[in-house]
Each structure stands twice: as structure tokens, then as C-alpha cells.
């Protein structure tokens, strides 16, 4: 059996784990665009911040590929021939597969912006190489302008704050983390970040650039030394689409991580998969899902039969001590009821639909939030216990003694 | 509230440096002695409630606690001792009979401690129990007098019913009610593991414990609680309780508050009703009535179970025992005046009955003099505290010993002697579910098994040093004993010589 994995991130290495849990001998080829062993992408901001060391960011020990008998080929796939079951690299090399897994992740999205070419030090922020590049561009007095107040932009801001003179974040949206938070929650986060020394220019973005000056939509001007473009990402799915594979905004997979093309699987940030909290397919570009999805794909490729049938989006981020966690579907629409619990600098919002917790946002008091996540993932029937008693203080009390006997007194 | 005159008996000494405010003491004290004051970040103590059960002391992780006898003292008076005065205050406060529990704590002589054991030297080798077999198995029950042979000349081997014990120790009667479910379970499972018996007391047998039947002695007492056919048939033997060492001549009383659902079912009385055991059995007013009950029980159990008659050691115990030995009973259990109880009037506990050592010696001698020692086995209890007490009891003539206080101590009892309050912090003498759970029967069983395993080792060591390798060769072997500091009369009653003789 010849396995080919395109991409070399967490989904890819989990896929290798999955294959090897069943097939110890099959040939595995990993085609990697980046010239690094798989690393934890979210650590790139912590690298800047100094919390993570370059040698500590790998997903697996250095002998992982060798031990698992994987050949790593550096290159970029440009095409798949589903009939001959080969992939073609940019170099022209062709690699045949019996089973293929696409773990190509995503790439930064940079819209056309006037004068961007006049900016000397401009970076995207998605790879460790981006971090290295930014690191070599900054000084302790640099003024950094980050365009995009989403997750990537803000983590970049956190990573850079203590290494540069000033950090300003702008976004067209009127609030930070607009895709995750509503106004109220965003305000809490924004206030905290401002207290921590980040400047914001929201509802506003660069209209055009002139060297190291950004001319903003509202007419104001921001001078900077380093520009970081954190406007979002797009999944790397072109070659798959070209081969005729089913895609929405990303590669569509079923619960076994199988794509619409036979013998082709996909996992990680480049897939769209069924979100049980939402009740539809969507991109859930999150590490746990990449790990579980990659492994699921690997096992199934090697002839096993498992499903990843409880995917939900979830996120835990923190900025200088303020943590926020989200899981499931938490837009207050689609008929979900919201229960809110507010404390000093903390908000908890729970979204309940059909007697199920479909999602939550917590800012501040994130202790034991996994208990909520579990309810979302398991679609637990809330009529079976007293959910309200969990709102302030998540614990296992409202569950039956029998249940606890199983979880605390047995192997789980 | 009027002044009650009562000095707190104990003092909580808290080493404030060591105290880390973990509040374990507070959580573990059912008497609410300890509390935490968040304002001052201090632990407080209300010593008037302290019974010196030592629970807090044992659980304090930094050993910050000591419970001491309160040294606040009334003026010394050899006649009017402080306790005597305090008891008067208590009675003046309440108008009630003073209640207490566990055994007689007064300084009467403990004969066990005045008896010493012999050892082999030169003329007779001692036996090393680690190298040689050392047998502790005993059979309790009537032993036939005559050998009979069948037509082929083979010995007929049918025996009257016997209790077979792997060591000559049984857990004596403690009812479910006076002690907790978990304490009972600990005793039952330990008895099973040890190959001995425990005793239901007069509280009936909880349905969960029928499975330990072959290690259970079921008691029939004056209240007849929980007695019915299945109960009688469940046990290895049936015990008629005529009396109890801690309170000879009086009955028992389990307050309705302790009669919860389970106890009500087990005792077969309505929930919440007081369980009152009358002072006498109302169908036994003489020895011939006892004989009737013995045979009623034998009839009910088809002569398959030995019947034990348990009596308190009282002044004419030898004559009483002789009567019982002729009543059809298979085993006589004698309970000495130091025997424990879950609740007894203090005056009775402390002033009625006689020491078990003397009672045993007198009974064994009397039954031998009358040639009826084989009619019955003798089991003695009432403060048998150690392996050496057991060895001495066997050598004086007992077939086996009943232990209860020692067993409770193994379970965690600290002899605070306030069982009657029902707030046993060790989960033993209580029915409060929150307190009951403090005794994990797994631990309880293990500790009991450990205790008796240790005693078994010690008994074997002592047997070995006497050159005896089977416990029956020790029974009644009074030559192995010598008295120290005993007068002629005491030696005569004990049937032993003085040390040096």
C-alpha cells in the first residue's frame, strides 16, 4: 500500500499515526511545502513572545518520520490525477498513491491594496518562517501596524508587544475578534488589550499605503515601521478543485474524512466537515479537529473503520491573563436560547437549542470549561439534569452517581 | 440558660503555627467543636462539646491538634472525686439516669495482668511456629461421652452440631443498631476471611449479610428482634442472650431515632419506634424455662445448630453455668463485668458483675468437678484485650474467647465512651449515614483481619514457647500459668500456683 500525504502539519502527522496504528509496513510519502518538520502553528506568536523556543515547536520528536518509515518530499502539489492516482509536484515530479490525504491547510488572504508594494517591511503571519522574518525586521523601537483584529492579528500583537515600541491594530470591523465575539464581549477583550498596551483603530482600515505610512479610511494617518497583514486565510484546495473534487469553502469530507473522490481523504484546516452543534458542514480550522480528523483519515486509509462524528468548533485563547473560550455555535440566532452569567470582568453565555447546549462563550472565568464542551460534543440532553447548577461552577455534581462511578471510578 | 456547673472535660490544644486552616477538624467533628472564623482567619473550639474521640487529632495533616484532659480542677478531695461531683451536677441538671458506654473503666483488678505464662527451658523443647505446624483450630459444641461402633466395628462419627473456628476467637454480639452497617459488614467479612464467627447481637440480621451465614452467630435476646425462621437457619449457631457483662440484669433500649428504614426492616419493628429489650426474657423465669427455649430453638433449626447461652458473670456463675450445661445448651458464653456496651446506666456498668477471669476459672472447675465439662464449650468475653489474654483464658479453661471492644478499637474506636450519643465520629456506633460512611468496610475488614492475624501469630509464638503445638493442649492447662501479687483465695479460685511455686 502506498500512502501519500500532502502537507506536513498536525493533521498530516496524526494521519501518519492513524495509518501506522493499523498498517506498519505501507509506504508513506509526505509532501511538504514548508521546509520544517510538522510544527504547532499556533506557537508562532508565542515564539515571538519568547514563550516557545524554536526547538520546542515540533509536533513530534525529531526521529518521528524515520521511525514511522515516512519519506518527506519537499515540494508543492499542483495537480492530482484521480484516474491514474498520481499527484504532480511543481517540479514536475509525479508521485503515485493508493491512498491520498490532503492536509494542506490554508494560506493568508491578502486583498489587493493600493500602495502595498511601496511598503518595505510587510509580512503575513501564518508560518514559523513569517515569525522569523518579522523577528529579523523589528527593533525594540519599531512601530508595528497590524491589519486585522482577528485571532491571528491579536496573537501577533501579543507576541510583539514587549519586543517593539508600539503596536497598533486596525480592522474594518467595529470590534475585535468580530468573527467570535459580539460587541459586549469584544469590548471587554479590547479594554483588556488596551490596558496591556495595544492601540486600536477599529471600524477603520488602511485605504492605501505610502511607504511606511498608512492612510486610513477615516482620513487619519498611521506611521509604522513594520506592517503585518492578518486579514484572514483561505484553504489550499485549488488542485483538488481542479481534479473535480467537491468543495464548499473547503474540501468537503464525510465523518470518515473521505472526500468525494475515491481514495482521497482530507483533514485539518482545508476541510469542511459536519459540525454537530451547528447542524451543517463548515470549516473548523482548529488543532483538536486537525488531530482527530488526521488520525481518523489515517486509520480509514489503512483499512480501519472509524468515524469522527462529533466535531465542533472550539477555541481557547488568552491575552495576558484574560482567557476566553468558545465552543460550538454561539451566534445568537437560529432560535437558540441564551443564558448569561456575568461576573466582574467575566461573562459566560450559553446557547441552548432543543434542550441541548449547542455552544458557549466564556470570557474570564474559564475554570473547568471542558465540562461545558463535553455537553456540546455529546449533545447531552439538558432535561436529564440540572444544567443551571453548572452555570456558575462547572462540576460533575448534577450528573448521576452512576455516571460518576463510571468516569471517576473506572477507565475512561 | 441556667448555669450547668459542668467543666469541659477536655481541652483542645491547637498549635497555631502548625495549623494551616485546612479545616479538616471542622469537617470531621460531628460534635461541632471546631469552627473557622474567616474574619480573623482563626480556628475556634467549643470544648464543652468535645468527647475526646480523637478524630480531629488523627486527621489533622500537620499534627497541630491535641485533646488534653482539662486541668481545670475542683479542689482535691479523696472522697469526693471530681468525677463524682460532676456526675452529681449532671444528675441535678437533668434528673436522669447517667448513661455511658463501652466497658467498666473503674480501677478494679485486672486478673489477666496478674497472671504469667510458662515457657519451655531445657527439659522440653520450645517449638518454632515458623518451622513446625501450630494448630489453632477449635470446635465448639457438645462432645459425646461414649464411643459407638457400627456393625463393622467402625467408629460412628456423627457429632452433635459444632462451630468450627480457625482460631479460638469470635467477635461478640453487637447489634446492627448499636453499631453501623459498615461496622457489621467489616465484622462479617473479616469473620469470613478469618474462618471465625461474628455475632448479630439482638438486632436481627441485615438481608445483605445472610451470605456470611456460616460465619454468623444469630442472637435471640429478650426483645426477640428480627427473629424468624430464616434468621435462625441463617447462622452457624443460635445464641440465647440472657445477660450482658456491662449491664447484667437489665435490658436494652435503642431509641426510635436510630430506627431508620434499614434497621426497622432488620429488627422487624416499625420505623421510628423505640426498640426495647426487656430485662428478663418473659418466657424464661427459671432454668427449666431456659431448657424449653433451648429445645424450641433446636427444634426450629432441626438440631443442626449448636445453641449458645450467654450470661453475664455474676456472683454464683458456677452454679448458673452448671445449670445451663444441663439444660441442653451446647455452648456457654460468659461475659465479664468489663464487657462493653453501646449504652448502659453508668452505675450498673461500673458496679455490677464479677471479673471474667474468676468466673471462667470457677465455671471450668465446677463443670469438671461435676464431670459435665464435655457437655458444653465455654466461651468467655468481657475485656479480652490481647493474644496473651486469650492464651491465659484458654489455659484457664476456655474453649474460645469473644472479643468486641478490641475489634471496635481495630475499626477506629478511641474509647471515648459516648456511643450512646449516636454521633460516633469513627462511623462505628452511629446510624447517621454521613458518619457511617467514615468506616469503609474494606478497611475495616482488613484491620480486623490484621489484628487477629497478629494475635494468631502471637498465640502461636506463646504456644510454641510452652512446647504446645495445638491449642487443645493448652485448654485448661493451668500449670502453664502462675499468679503474681494474688492472695491465696484468688489463686485458689483461679486454680493456679503463685509464681515461684
Amino acid at each position, binding site marked *: 500500500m502506498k500512502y501519500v500525504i500532502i502537507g506536513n502539519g498536525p493533521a498530516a502527522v496524526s494521519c501518519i499515526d492513524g495509518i501506522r496504528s493499523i498498517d506498519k509496513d505501507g509506504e508513506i510519502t509526505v509532501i511538504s511545502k514548508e521546509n520544517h518538520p510538522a510544527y504547532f502553528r499556533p506557537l508562532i506568536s508565542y515564539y515571538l513572545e519568547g514563550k516557545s523556543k524554536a526547538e520546542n515547536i515540533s509536533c513530534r520528536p525529531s526521529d518521528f518520520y524515520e521511525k514511522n518509515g515516512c519519506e518527506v518530499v519537499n515540494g508543492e502539489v499542483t495537480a492530482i490525477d484521480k484516474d491514474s492516482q498520481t499527484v504532480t509536484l511543481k517540479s514536475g515530479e509525479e508521485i503515485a498513491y493508493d491512498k491520498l490525504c490532503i492536509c494542506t491547510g490554508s494560506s493568508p488572504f491578502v486583498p489587493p491594496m493600493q500602495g502595498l508594494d511601496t511598503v518595505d517591511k510587510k509580512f503575513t503571519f501564518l508560518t514559523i518562517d513569517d515569525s522569523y522574518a518579522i523577528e529579523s525586521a523589528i527593533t525594540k523601537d519599531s512601530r508595528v501596524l497590524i491589519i486585522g483584529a482577528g485571532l491571528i492579528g491579536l496573537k501577533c500583537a501579543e507576541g510583539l508587544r514587549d519586543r517593539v515600541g508600539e503596536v497598533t491594530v486596525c480592522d474594518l470591523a467595529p470590534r475585535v475578534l468580530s468573527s467570535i465575539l459580539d460587541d459586549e464581549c469584544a469590548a471587554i477583550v479590547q479594554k483588556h488589550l488596551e490596558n496591556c498596551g495595544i492601540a486600536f483603530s477599529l471600524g477603520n482600515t488602511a485605504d492605501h499605503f505610502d511607504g511606511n505610512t498608512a492612510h486610513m479610511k477615516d482620513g487619519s494617518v498611521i506611521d509604522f515601521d513594520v506592517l503585518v497583514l492578518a486579514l484572514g486565510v483561505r484553504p489550499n484546495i485549488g488542485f483538488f478543485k481542479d481534479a473535480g473534487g467537491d468543495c464548499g469553502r473547503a474540501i468537503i469530507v464525510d465523518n470518515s474524512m473521505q472526500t468525494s473522490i475515491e481514495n482521497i481523504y482530507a483533514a485539518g484546516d482545508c476541510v469542511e466537515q459536519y459540525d454537530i452543534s451547528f447542524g451543517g458542514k463548515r470549516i473548523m480550522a482548529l488543532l483538536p479537529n486537525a488531530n482527530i480528523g488526521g488520525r481518523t483519515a489515517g486509520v480509514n486509509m489503512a483499512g480501519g473503520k472509524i468515524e469522527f462524528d462529533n466535531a465542533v468548533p472550539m477555541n481557547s485563547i488568552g491575552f495576558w491573563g484574560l482567557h476566553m473560550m468558545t465552543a460550538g455555535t454561539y451566534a445568537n440566532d437560529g432560535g437558540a436560547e441564551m443564558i448569561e452569567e456575568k461576573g466582574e470582568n467575566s461573562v459566560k453565555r450559553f446557547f441552548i437549542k432543543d434542550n441541548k447546549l449547542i455552544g458557549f462563550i466564556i470570557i474570564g472565568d474559564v475554570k473547568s470549561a471542558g465540562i461545558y464542551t463535553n455537553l456540546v460534543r455529546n449533545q447531552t440532553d439538558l432535561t436529564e439534569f440540572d444544567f443551571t447548577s453548572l452555570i456558575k461552577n462547572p462540576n460533575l455534581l448534577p450528573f448521576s452517581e452512576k455516571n460518576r462511578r463510571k468516569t471517576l471510578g473506572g477507565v475512561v | 440558660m441556667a448555669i450547668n456547673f459542668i467543666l469541659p472535660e477536655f481541652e483542645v490544644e491547637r498549635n497555631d503555627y502548625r495549623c494551616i486552616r485546612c479545616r479538616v477538624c471542622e469537617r470531621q467533628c460531628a460534635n461541632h467543636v471546631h469552627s473557622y472564623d474567616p474574619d480573623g482567619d482563626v480556628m475556634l473550639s467549643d470544648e464543652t462539646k468535645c468527647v475526646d474521640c480523637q478524630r480531629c487529632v488523627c486527621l489533622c495533616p*500537620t499534627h497541630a491538634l491535641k485533646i488534653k484532659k482539662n486541668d481545670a480542677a475542683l479542689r482535691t478531695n479523696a472522697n469526693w472525686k471530681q468525677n463524682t461531683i460532676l456526675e452529681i451536677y449532671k444528675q441535678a441538671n437533668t434528673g436522669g439516669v447517667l448513661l455511658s458506654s463501652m466497658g467498666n473503666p473503674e480501677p478494679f483488678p485486672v486478673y489477666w495482668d496478674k497472671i504469667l505464662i510458662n515457657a519451655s527451658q531445657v527439659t522440653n523443647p520450645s517449638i518454632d511456629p515458623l518451622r513446625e505446624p501450630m494448630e489453632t483450630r477449635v470446635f465448639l459444641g457438645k462432645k459425646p461421652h461414649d464411643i459407638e461402633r457400627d456393625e463393622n466395628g467402625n467408629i460412628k462419627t456423627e457429632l452433635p452440631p459444632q462451630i468450627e473456628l480457625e482460631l479460638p476467637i469470635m467477635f461478640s454480639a453487637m447489634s446492627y443498631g448499636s453499631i453501623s452497617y459498615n461496622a457489621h459488614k467489616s465484622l462479617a467479612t473479616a469473620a469470613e476471611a478469618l474462618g471465625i464467627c461474628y455475632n448479630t447481637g439482638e438486632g436481627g440480621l441485615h438481608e445483605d449479610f445472610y451470605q456470611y451465614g456460616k460465619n454468623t452467630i444469630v442472637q435471640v435476646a429478650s426483645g426477640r428482634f428480627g427473629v424468624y425462621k430464616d434468621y435462625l437457619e441463617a447462622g452457624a449457631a443460635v445464641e440465647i442472650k440472657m445477660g450482658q457483662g456491662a449491664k447484667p440484669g437489665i435490658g436494652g433500649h435503642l431509641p426510635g431515632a436510630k430506627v431508620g428504614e434499614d434497621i426497622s426492616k432488620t429488627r422487624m419493628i416499625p420505623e421510628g419506634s423505640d426498640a426495647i429489650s426487656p430485662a428478663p426474657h418473659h418466657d424464661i423465669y427459671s432454668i427449666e424455662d431456659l431448657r424449653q427455649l433451648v429445645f424450641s430453638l433446636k427444634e426450629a433449626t432441626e438440631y443442626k445448630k449448636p445453641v449458645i447461652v450467654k450470661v453475664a458473670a455474676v456472683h454464683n456463675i458456677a452454679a448458673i453455668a452448671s445449670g445451663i450445661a444441663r439444660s441442653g445448651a451446647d455452648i456457654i458464653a460468659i461475659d465479664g463485668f468489663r464487657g462493653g456496651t453501646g449504652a448502659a446506666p453508668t452505675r450498673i456498668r461500673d458496679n455490677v458483675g464479677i471479673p471474667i477471669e474468676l468466673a471462667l476459672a470457677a465455671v471450668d472447675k465446677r463443670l469438671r468437678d461435676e464431670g459435665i465439662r464435655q457437655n458444653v464449650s465455654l466461651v468467655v468475653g468481657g475485656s479480652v484485650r490481647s493474644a496473651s489474654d486469650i492464651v491465659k483464658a484458654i489455659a484457664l479453661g476456655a474453649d474460645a474467647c469473644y472479643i468486641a471492644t478490641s475489634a471496635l478499637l481495630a475499626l477506629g474506636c478511641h474509647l471515648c465512651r459516648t456511643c450512646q450519643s449516636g454521633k460516633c465520629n469513627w462511623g462505628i456506633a452511629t446510624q447517621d449515614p454521613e458518619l457511617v460512611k467514615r468506616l469503609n468496610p474494606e478497611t475495616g475488614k482488613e484491620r480486623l483481619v490484621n489484628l487477629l492475624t497478629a494475635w494468631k501469630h502471637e498465640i502461636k509464638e506463646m504456644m510454641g514457647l510452652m512446647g504446645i503445638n495445638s491449642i487443645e493442649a493448652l485448654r485448661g492447662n493451668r500449670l502453664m500459668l502462675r499468679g503474681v501479687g494474688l492472695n491465696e483465695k484468688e489463686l485458689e479460685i483461679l486454680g493456679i500456683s503463685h509464681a515461684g511455686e
Partner: protein
Amino acid sequence: MKRVYVHEEWCLGCHLCEYNCAFANSGIADMVKALKNKKITPRIHVEEGGKIHYAVSCRHCEDPLCIKGCISGALTKDDEGVVTIDHNKCVGCLSCMLLCPYGCITTDENETVLKCELCMKNSCGAPACVQGCPNRAIVYEEVQE
């Protein structure tokens, strides 16, 4: 593998496990010195309500979600099956806390992520909560799945 199991039936709610845990992981030889006047952040905690008490600590799951969600590779399962945390790698994102279905992961006052590692990394050698439990409500043993 041997794990810590909790038997609610026998938990007295005394909280000694929490103190023993905090002490065991303090690196200080004397309990008083280690815990006096400190807010403890034990890796095991007692949950209680009314007459129910039980302790909760890392289950060392067969297939631990916390490890799947760990963005830094700090959480791993060792050869014995113990889920351990490498503080050199942990960046404090708390994804593990978001994922742990039992609420077993906590942080100390410095936001260091703490979890039960069965006292394998401290001087106890065997779980201190188990050793100190007065009623065998917490046991350390091998249970067949």
C-alpha cells in the same frame, strides 16, 4: 495501568487530598512551611453538594482530549500511560481546560497549568492523595477496562 480512582461512596469530603496534593507538589519538606498562609492550587479537587462528596483528578484517559487539543505539545502520554505536562513547552493557552470533560486541569496563581501526574514527578512516588485518604475513597490501582 495503575490510575487514581475515586469511590464517591467513601468520600468524606474532608479535603485532605487537596492539601496532601498541594504539599506533595510544593517541593517543600514540611507541610506547614509549604501550605501555611497559602491559597492552595491542588491538582485534585473535591466537589460537593449536600451529602455528596467526591474528589476529581486527571483520569489519564485512554485517548485524552487534552493532548489532542494541546497547541504546544506540552501534554503527552508517557510509556506508562500517564498524561504529563512539560512546562517548558506549555504556553498557557488552556485548550486542555477547554477540552477536559472532567474539569481536572487547573492553574496556579502564576497561570501555570497544573494537572495530576500521579506524583511521578515529585518525591512521593505514589499519589499523595491516595496515601493520605483516610477512608480509601481514593485508590491507586489497576482496573480492568
